[in-house]
């Protein structure tokens, strides 16, 4: 048969069958809330507080100060170099404090400026600042207080040392103190202890411990901040402490399962923002246990996986979760931070995650351990070490219960491969930096040359390829490019009709839908 006739027949067949070319339609962006102005690259920010003068939200991210107005618009207002620490305010001034450096910033005219900065001679365990409205108690002895072991040093607002104002009593088992605060009103000093004591103590100006009205109150307080006229203590949530803590369930509490809090700010409508390791989370009035919005970026994604509607992204040691149908500013769907560390430890580094049944296989490159991770399960079953070992695992895939591992880049006689995915238990697609091949039952079926391939993912009857500045679809049958769109993506993952890809430039995870 002549080629032209054949092609004509194919075309007719295509018309008769309604054969439509596939495409990947951009469906949305996840983990990036840049719609209201400046978006952030990192998952979390260094700190938040309110501008005492306007009530606007201030955010410290990437060494820059951002201000968010009442309309939600956000803009950068100050570049800050050599300014480590978290934001806080004392009701009048705004500070950035680390455990060694205290910087005061403020508006001069209409511009934010660095007003003063001092460095302490050594890092302290914790630094707190008395609120501007309190002048009694310890606030009469100093403005800034630094914890060194059991000694509490007082300093002036400009950092002038004023001596040790209190030596905290020794705790059982020499349990250390970790956190300080000055109680508004009385000016009593609050000091929190670490595990296993885990209490929040209160001391009067004469050094005696205040043991009434519920004090000391048990609970782990990792940090404190002044907002709305009270001290907020951070643990899995932010709790507003009062002079009396007898009625614990009457203390205001914002957040749930938010570990590593470093700041709190109000939203001007009886709600709050919390600065967490998952980003800045907005808890409006009426929703103090369920955040409705997250301010943050996707971070530097090192691996991505999609299983049903659960997305898992890796930043190295830290993993976080998203849902496929999330909005761009949806809060992340994993609780706190600690339970989602590679192997539930602090040292693993993951750059490979794939779905495996209802779980995920996570490869810890540093420890050279393959884990099976079940985010929905608690306890020892959440992270289970797998028996497989590798010399240099480049990528892996699971399909129809069969696992494929690209150890040292070798597969089916090929070397130097970087990526692998599978259509079924017998059909695999592999890629090195500049080509993609289909291997069925161990034999190569086709090879397509491309440039700068960063990742591949099987979606339907196609292979999605992140190559150069493009996202392509290659047909399973012959490897031909059937769709191409500009998109610079790093890591891909697919399930059903959905493809996600990390975009380092936008610090977002883009979501595409396969349309045929």
């Amino acid at each position, binding site marked *: 048969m002549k080629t032209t006739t054949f092609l004509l027949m194919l075309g007719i067949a295509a018309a008769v069958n309604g054969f439509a070319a596939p495409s990947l*339609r951009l*469906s*949305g962006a996840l983990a990036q809330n840049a719609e209201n102005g400046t978006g952030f690259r990192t998952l979390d920010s260094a700190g938040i507080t309110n501008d005492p003068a306007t009530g606007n939200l201030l955010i410290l991210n990437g060494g820059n100060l951002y201000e968010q107005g009442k309309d939600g618009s956000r803009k950068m207002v100050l570049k800050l170099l050599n300014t480590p620490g978290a934001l806080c305010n004392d009701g009048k001034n705004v500070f950035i404090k680390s455990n060694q450096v205290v910087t005061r910033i403020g508006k001069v005219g209409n511009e934010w400026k660095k007003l003063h900065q001092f460095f302490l001679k050594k890092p302290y365990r914790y630094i707190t600042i008395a609120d501007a409205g309190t002048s009694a108690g310890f606030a009469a002895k100093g403005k800034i207080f630094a914890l060194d072991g059991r000694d509490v040093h007082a300093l002036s607002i400009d950092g002038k040392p004023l001596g040790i104002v209190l030596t905290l009593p020794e705790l059982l088992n020499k349990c250390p103190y970790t956190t300080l605060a000055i109680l508004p009103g009385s000016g009593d000093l609050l000091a929190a202890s670490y595990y296993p004591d885990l209490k929040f103590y209160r001391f009067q100006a004469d050094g005696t411990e205040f043991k009434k009205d519920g004090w000391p109150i048990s609970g782990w307080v990792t940090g404190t901040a002044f907002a709305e006229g009270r001290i907020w203590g951070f643990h899995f949530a932010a709790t507003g402490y009062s002079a009396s803590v007898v009625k614990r*369930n*009457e*203390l*205001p*509490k914002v957040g749930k399962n938010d570990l590593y809090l470093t700041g709190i700010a109000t939203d001007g*409508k*009886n*709600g709050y923002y919390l600065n967490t390791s998952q980003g800045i989370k907005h808890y*409006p*009035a*009426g*929703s*103090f246990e369920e955040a*409705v919005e997250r301010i943050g970026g996707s971070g530097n994604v090192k691996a991505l996986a999609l299983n*049903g*509607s659960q997305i898992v992204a890796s930043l190295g040691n830290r993993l976080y979760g998203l*849902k*496929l*149908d999330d*909005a761009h500013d949806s809060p992340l769907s994993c609780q706190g931070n600690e339970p989602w560390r590679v192997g539930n430890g602090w040292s693993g580094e993951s750059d490979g995650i794939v779905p495996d049944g209802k779980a995920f296989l996570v490869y810890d490159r540093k420890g050279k351990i393959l884990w099976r991770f079940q985010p929905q399960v608690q306890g020892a079953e959440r992270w289970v070490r797998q028996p497989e070992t590798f010399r240099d695992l480049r990528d892996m895939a699971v399909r129809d219960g069969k696992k494929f591992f690209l150890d040292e880049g070798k597969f089916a006689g090929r070397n130097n491969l970087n990526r692998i995915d599978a259509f079924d238990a017998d059909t695999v697609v592999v890629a090195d930096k500049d080509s993609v091949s289909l291997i069925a039952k161990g034999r190569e079926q086709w090879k397509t040359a491309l440039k700068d391939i960063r990742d591949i993912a099987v979606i339907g009857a196609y292979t999605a390829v992140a190559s150069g500045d493009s996202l392509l679809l290659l047909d399973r049958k012959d490897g031909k490019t059937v769709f191409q769109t500009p998109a610079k993506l790093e890591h891909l993952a697919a399930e059903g*009709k*959905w493809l996600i890809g990390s975009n380092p430039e936008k610090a977002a995870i883009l*979501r595409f*839908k396969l*349309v045929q």
Partner: protein
Amino acid sequence: MHRYSISALLAVLCFAAAAKAEIRLTGDTNAPETSMFPQGAKVELFYQVSGLQPNQGNLTLELNVVDEKEKSLKKFSLPVKADSEGRWSATVAPPCERLGFYRVYSRLSNGILLSKLASRKAGFLTYAVVFGEDRYKEYPMEETFFGNHGPSFGFHRMIGLRWGYKGKNWSVLEPEKPGEYARNPKADQIDLLGELPKWKEYYQTNQNPIPKWMEDPRYRITKNGKWVRFTPEGEKYYAEYLKTFAANYARQIRQNQVRALIQITWEPHFPWNFSGTAEDLVQIHRNAYQAIHAGTKDAWVIGPTAAGLNTLDWHRELFEAGLLKYVDAISIHPYFAFPPEQNGMVEKVRAFKALVRKYAGRDLDIHGNEAGFPTHELPERETLQMHGIVRSNLILLGEGFKSNMVFYSHDYWYEPGYGYTYNLNPKREFGTDKVAPKPLVPAIGAAAYFLNGHTSAGAIESLGDTAWGYAYQRRDGFTTLALWDYSGNSREVEIPVGRAEIELGDMMGNTRKVKTDDGTLKLTLTEDPVYVIDVDPELWGRGAIRPISPDQTKISTISGRTVTISGTLHAKKVPMNGTLLLSGDPKWKLPQMKQEFQVKAGESAAYSFRLALPGNLPEGNLPLSLKFISEGKRIAATTLLLRIKPPVAIDEILPDFRNGKKCLKIKMRELSGNETEGSLETRIVGNPDGRKRMRFRIRGGGSAEILCVYDDLEVNPLKNDDLELTVATDSGFRFKRKEKMNFLSAVYRPGIRIDGNLADWKGVPVWPFDPGMIRDEAKIYQGGKDLNASISFAWNESGLLFLVDVRDNVYCQPHTGWQTWDGDSLQMGFTRRVRYKETANMLQDKMNVAYSEIDFALTKNGPEVYRTVTFDSTRFPIAQISLKDAPLKVIKTQQPDGSTRLQYEISVPWKFLNMPSAPAAGSCIGWSMSVNDRDQQKGPRAWLEAFSLKKTKDFGILVLTK
């Protein structure tokens, strides 16, 4: 053969026999008949292993003793060393100090599980530590509630169940001919009760069974094999019998209880147990009532003994026909869906009582004499059985029922898992002689222990939106509370008890004493009821006037409004001089308000607070507390609930289709009177295409319809998805509404005829049933090869049209008539309205909703259509429907692989949905369906289900499109 060879051969044979003998692990307790132990008794477990190799010693017996929550209490690991015959046994002393349920998972280290025994699955045995019959006090009949339904050799006494059935019936007393008993001059000497136990019990008698000779058409009229009424001659014999029986029975039972309770009918429902009308049933009761009361004044007629609490309409019909003139008290089988609270049991019971009150002019005693829950022999359902039966009994007692019998005393094969005990005798389906407890046993025993002798002193409704409870009081004033939270989450509450120290009982009966805070108890409520024993009757007893008596304990209001909280302070024996504080959860920043009072002892004073609510309170129930503080001490407290409604309400969310795109029509209403702007976000959980955000503006007091169009939404049209709608007003109010939603349309096709010619269905979308839509409680479904189906929807002026294509590996439809649902068939449910909000007018609601259910089947008689549920039994009776009215064609073809293909072409006329003609395009119909599959004539079956056939509120919405 040489002797050596013979010995060797014998040795080989023995070895082979030993090698082939199966290793078996069995076990029992030292109370083998019941495995129930009174508290303080020693518990021992005996295990035997057989089939081991002689002297085999490489195995261990692993035991894990867990409680009803599967929490491990103790583990054992025993080395197993066989004797020369390959046997081993051991005795173990497991934990038994606390009242409760114990399950002992038992297995050998090579994986062999404890053998299955009758209805108890392999792998475990159970025992329970209970109060034991000696611990249960005796109370008069009127003050005894808990009962047992089913044969028992006495184990029900160990858990205090004192109601049951006793009394010979007509089929026993007159087996051969009329008058055998009634005209017997020595009838009064015939023992009707048998030996009464020393342990006090109270009885009803079921006079429903009739002698065989009464089935003669001269005496009894039937239809479809079911009872309609007695003939005049049959009535005469029945009355004659009942008069004599009642007189003798009442006399004999007087030694035991103040009156006889005689039940006449048992679940007389059409079509499975009765084929008559409401008037027929009333006549049966009239005849019986007159006869019984002619025989004695010491007997009550109880009836009509409905099957389930969801029978209000059925009762209403009977009451309208005059039934209540012919019963002295109500009997009912109060079956209800579990969990009872979330399914509306309290509301249903109250509606039932209101119905009785309306037609009788007063309250009548109500006796429940059968209600249970099947576990299908799945241990994972036993917790639901335990919680459901205990809490439903607490509800029934709390709402004023006089008694209830827990069904059934032990498992039986015909309906697996109904027992509250396992039946461990495989040879005796009924009346077994060996049982073992399920978790319900100690739990119902604890309820009976704490609450026997008590009657209701009222519901406790204001502790929180999923917190519930009752106060119960004995005649001597002793008052006990039962409280729980049915949400599955724990809830901290404070409740005044009027004691410095109080005793609490857990669900299994274990007690502990706790101190209160100036008479206020702090408690954490969970799904397990907690009993608060001996509270101050002045606070919780019947008619108690509490020191703080709010005018309303539940106040509905809107976020942002000012609400009045008012009531009365009653200073009883001591003056109330101090401060009344009103406060709420501080997270809502409600102002704490106070008023000072000086109320003399014996006097009262009114209080009133005007509470301005913030504009951003969430929708839901907000507990408030009122406390009276005098000299720094709290001397009185109470709680009340604010029911917060949002300033903006969503009245209705319906699907629609515009230009081929799926949409939602959202009707909103502004309630605060101020123009409101805000944002609306939809989310279809798990589906990225279902997320949309839009702005809205509604004028004050007005309403608006917002159309949300999805560009490219892909869903399974035969399933409900979870829709979340979040409304956030610019003023800061925010609420989320969750609903089930589906997108399913029927296309307009005037050309379709129900004639078996399927060409006219061309172009109508075909929707497959996902294999995940299978309902397969007995786990018999084998996947798509077993059963798969697809469906197309259309409509025209004649009615709703369906083409259902079923492929079934085994075609089995042995029935005709009303029972076709039990073979290969289709069952469809329809409602005329969707998301219907009920009014107080049941009849109007019924006609508006027009809920009906119709079966379609290919039987040995050809295609059949049978209506099994109706909203109007006069116009649309429960009966077979002529194919002229409801055309049905079924094309049956055998497939090459041996399976059967059935293509059902169906038309349901509009009048069946209570519509005079075709509705307009865009209208919504409620619809659900099951594709039933049976592969054997008897035994369990499975079905594919679209939506939820038996729950109209979960029906799919079918949109008529043009």
